[in-house]
């Protein structure tokens, strides 16, 4: 193989070809993907434009991912809304929709939320009582409606008047009273603050899991590391080649036009066996004997 001398001109050519190869990658991809052989024939092209979102959902490989994301972002309020709309739709179709959720106001002004469930053809109820700050606390489950209401009536909240002692002696009076500092009293209303008349919706805000973002970040760092490693390996490998004097290569090149560059013989191996290089021959001695 003829070994060409690597002068500045050839080195420039090598560098430029490397740079062009890297720079023109997107261009090459675009050109090849837009090539006529890859395009649909004219009769197969749709004449009317599709809607952009439909195109996205139908054709994009990200459609599934996007739908999943939408589904994950659906809040509890949306779910309730969907249920309500579903009930309305069923009603419009003529179905009989029973209300299984009842809001009851007790005598003491407590709001009681009762959910009806069917257990062996017998309706049973689960109750939630409203507490301070528009929260609802679980009261009882698996009872009749009257029992739930009685349970709510017999509740004693912090700040209520003391009840009469019960017959058994076991009741709210015999229980150890909650310490004052642990009682959940409503916060004092500061000046200028208005209390909304309607209770705020109990919507659980969707808390996104941190793991997808963490995995994305990890993947990004991994890709960066792989890229750096590849460039490092590329440069080291190019330096280890004898024809590309990017890094230390001492023995392989010859000046262009010199006798060494013009000979077809390969240069001496760069090796550790210095004893193997041919030694200068001594003068021939006469063999007398």
């Amino acid at each position, binding site marked *: 193989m003829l070994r060409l001398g690597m002068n500045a001109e050839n080195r420039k050519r090598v560098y430029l070809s490397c740079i062009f190869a890297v720079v023109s990658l997107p261009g090459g991809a675009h050109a090849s993907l837009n090539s006529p052989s890859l395009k649909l024939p004219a009769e197969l092209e749709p004449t009317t434009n599709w809607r952009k979102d439909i195109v996205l959902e139908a054709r994009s490989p990200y459609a599934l991912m996007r739908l999943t994301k939408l589904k994950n972002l659906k809040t509890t309020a949306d779910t309730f809304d969907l249920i309500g709309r579903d009930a309305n739709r069923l009603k419009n179709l003529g179905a009989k929709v029973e209300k299984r959720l009842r809001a009851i106001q007790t005598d003491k002004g407590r709001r009681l939320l009762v959910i009806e469930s069917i257990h062996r053809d017998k309706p049973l109820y689960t109750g939630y009582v409203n507490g301070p700050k528009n929260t609802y606390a679980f009261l009882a489950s698996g009872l009749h409606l009257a029992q739930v209401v009685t349970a709510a009536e017999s509740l004693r909240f912090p700040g209520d008047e003391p009840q009469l002692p019960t017959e058994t002696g076991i009741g709210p009076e015999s229980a150890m009273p909650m310490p004052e500092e642990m009682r959940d009293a409503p916060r004092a209303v500061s000046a200028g603050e208005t209390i909304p008349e309607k209770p705020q919706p109990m919507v659980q805000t969707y808390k996104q899991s941190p793991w997808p973002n963490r995995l994305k970040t990890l993947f990004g760092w991994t890709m960066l590391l792989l890229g750096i490693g590849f460039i*490092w390996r590329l440069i080291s490998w190019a330096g280890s080649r004898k024809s590309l004097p990017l890094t230390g290569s001492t023995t392989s090149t010859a000046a262009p036009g010199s006798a060494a560059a013009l000979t077809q013989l390969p240069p001496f191996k760069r090796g550790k066996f210095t004893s193997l290089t041919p030694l200068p021959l001594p003068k021939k001695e006469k063999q007398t004997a």
Partner: protein
Amino acid sequence: MISEFSENPYPGILVRPLPKPPYDAATSLARTATKRTSVPRLSGLSAPSPTLEEIVYSDRYPVVVKRRRFRFWHKSVVRTGTGNVLRTKASRLPRLMRAWGLWSLAAAWVVAHGIAESAGADPLASAFWLNSFLWFGLTSYFTGAFFGTFAKKRLELETTAGELVYQVRRIAGGILTSHFSLRDELGNEHLRLQRSGTQFFKRRWKFYDRLGGAGPQIVERSYLTALCRKLFGHLWGNFRARYTIWHNGITVGSIEREGFTNDRFRIEFWKEVPTLDPKLVATAVAFIDHQDPERWHPWFN
């Protein structure tokens, strides 16, 4: 050959003969012995003359061991300094089974997520795919782990015609320390290999002769490279192990890595270890590559 040598017109100089496979050590020895006795040393300034072992070993080394990739078996091609081409073959089945098992379990994981995402999926089809991937994955992984742990490890060096030259067998194994035996085709033991310890900071393989005498050691060059390999994998071959061959307190040779991803071994000696056959060293190196392959991902070795 000897008569040809006696006609050498330059009696003061050793002329390196062209290597003729198969290499005949006895002839070379006899030739050099006659040379040494017949020629007096030059007085004063003299050119460095190669010794016998330098001639012998420069003929036999460097040995290049190249792994053939994307094969079902672990195969490598050995090219000795005399131009002989040999090949090694070892089983990769347990490792492949473990890999298939892991991939299959990953597929089962994906399928499970798909089922959880889509409530309207056909339960029969979902269960079929989930069970298939899950059971194939578990079976394959644990079978591979079992055989990888308890099956005898074996690597063979053979000629291109398929004739067995040397083979490596495991003779004793523990959790951290394993002993391997290099035998010829007749079963005669030539060398013993010991891999001991966690090899965390540096890889170190010890050679023993068949009587238990300590032979050379193959020691990894850089602990920094070793640690980086633990963290990042070999990273396009940047963190692959390079070795030093150490014997009797001195460095007698090296095992370098070549190629774009540094996956080739180049074994070179600059000092004699007379008992070591280069084919034995090549077998040992191919076996080390089979035992402790560098990986793309973070790993323990």
